[in-house]
């Protein structure tokens, strides 16, 4: 139809022109308003990173939170640091908080490989990317990154060292971690996949001390009463190794060999004093800062530049390198 191209009387189409002009200006104005409202040019300081870990009572998780907070602030973010205490419900509430606060990103050391999938999916649906540290979840494509300590590899290192210091024979006890924590089972499996290959090594007791130093102390006491001839103790983490070591010292059994897991400053000191033989250091500081750096890159460019799953190896700490260890970092 070419009617509009005919030369109409100006008055008749002026009304329509004004209408269109009005609409046009309105559309442009809306566009400007919407553009300003959603501009990525908003300051990074307005952007919030929510850091969620297990309880900071354990120096490992405290270090994670501190390292992540420091890096986030350095990059211009504001930070909210929370602990879920290994409780899936609490973790869910914290994800809700992050969503309500319109967080830019979540850094999460999660409360369980299965139970956390839904929480991370919920954040994703709300437009918040999650960067997992230390522990995996059992589904890919949900979190943007999973920067995990290789707990199994670390346990393999600890198990191998334990087998060697035990001379491949003798009775030993194992203290396992909190049963609800996937890492408790992963480390125990890592230990046993090595130690069970040595028929001369006999596990005479296996008890959970729930990651707790005081619980490990009392469990060690009762194990000693039942098995006074024990030659070694292998613990799922350093706080339990410290508890076991204290009980052994108190009972005059300082010659019993002890191996832990995490790489805490306490155990470093005990290794240097000869009270504990070895531990596997998780690079808590490094993985936390990696997660924040990758989150920042993701927010700015839409990609981390890395695959989703990134493995960070544990390092065996013995008397040979204990002096280089501080706050879950090994200096060169």
């Amino acid at each position: 139809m070419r009617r509009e191209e005919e030369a109409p009387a100006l008055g008749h189409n002026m009304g329509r022109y004004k209408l269109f002009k009005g609409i046009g200006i309105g559309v442009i104005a809306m566009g400007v308003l919407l553009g300003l409202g959603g501009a990525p040019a908003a300051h990074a300081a307005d952007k919030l990173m929510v850091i969620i870990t297990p309880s900071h009572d354990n120096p490992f998780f405290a270090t994670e939170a501190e390292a992540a907070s420091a890096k986030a602030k350095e990059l211009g973010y504001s930070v909210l640091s929370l602990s879920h205490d290994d409780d899936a419900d609490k973790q869910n509430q914290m994800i809700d908080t992050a969503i309500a606060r319109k967080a830019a990103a979540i850094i999460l050391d999660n409360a369980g490989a299965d139970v956390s999938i839904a929480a991370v999916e919920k954040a994703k649906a709300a437009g918040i990317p999650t960067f997992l540290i230390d522990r995996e979840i059992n589904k890919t494509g949900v979190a943007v990154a999973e920067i995990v300590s290789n707990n199994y590899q670390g346990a393999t290192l600890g198990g191998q060292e334990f087998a060697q210091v035990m001379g491949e024979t003798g009775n030993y006890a194992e203290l396992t971690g909190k049963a609800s924590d996937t890492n408790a089972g992963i480390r125990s499996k890592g230990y046993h996949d090595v130690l069970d290959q040595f028929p001369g090594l006999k596990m005479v007791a296996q008890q959970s001390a729930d990651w707790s130093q005081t619980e490990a102390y009392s469990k060690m006491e009762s194990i000693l009463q039942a098995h006074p001839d024990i030659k070694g103790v292998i613990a799922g983490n350093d706080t339990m190794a410290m508890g076991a070591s204290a009980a052994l010292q108190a009972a005059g059994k300082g010659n019993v060999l002890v191996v832990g897991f995490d790489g805490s400053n306490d155990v470093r000191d005990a290794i240097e004093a000869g009270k504990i033989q070895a531990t596997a250091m998780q690079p808590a500081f490094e993985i936390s800062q990696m997660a924040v750096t990758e989150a920042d890159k993701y927010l700015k460019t839409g990609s981390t530049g890395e695959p989703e799953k990134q493995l960070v190896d544990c390092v065996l700490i013995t008397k040979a390198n204990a002096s280089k260890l501080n706050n879950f970092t090994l200096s060169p």
Partner: protein
Amino acid sequence: MLEITQGGDRASRHFRRDVVLLGLAAGLLSGCKIVRNGTSATTDPQKPDSFNARAYVAQLWTPRVLPFFQQKSADLATVLGALAKNASDADKSFGQPPAASGGNWTFAVKSEGKVTAVDTKSLHGTMTVAVPGVSTPVTLQIGPVVFGSAIRDCLPFLAFSDFVNQIEYAEVARALNGQAGAGIRQQLDPAKTLGRVVAFSGAMPDPAATGAVQVTPVTMRLSGGAGQ
């Protein structure tokens, strides 16, 4: 449909069609890497996963793992010399980068030398070999208990991201160690090699990281003499 499926009664046509399809499928699958992604069937690490690492490795071994070491291993003395000269160049020329951050490079190496010591008292058995042109003794893990994941770490076609979690990834390492050990024991009895010359190929973690020249062998045979 292909010509081959023409002719004959319906049953035989379908049979031939199925054979052709199966053949195609098998042909495609044999070149494929089995990749596992998504939700794991079970998460309790104490309960057996649905993943069978031994079977996985067994189907990779002959078509991919052995040929890799047979074709891509570099002479051990050459690799060590290159590392001493310029480690980062040598890494790129001969090595496989660390699978994990903070890990070490791993090298596929081959060599030959005289066995100067064998320790089978420890279950973590070792063999010491004097390699011409290499000043430090070379230690080979002969098992039955083998430590570490060097064989897995050497292979460019296996990555952590191919597996559901670190446990599966670790089980593959163990299965590779086991498969290698079984193959070697078919060739010789390590306990009886003292003073003999052995030719081997295997995976060597960066000596700068381990502080020694250690090889997890993948192939080994007595050199210039009847096998035992």
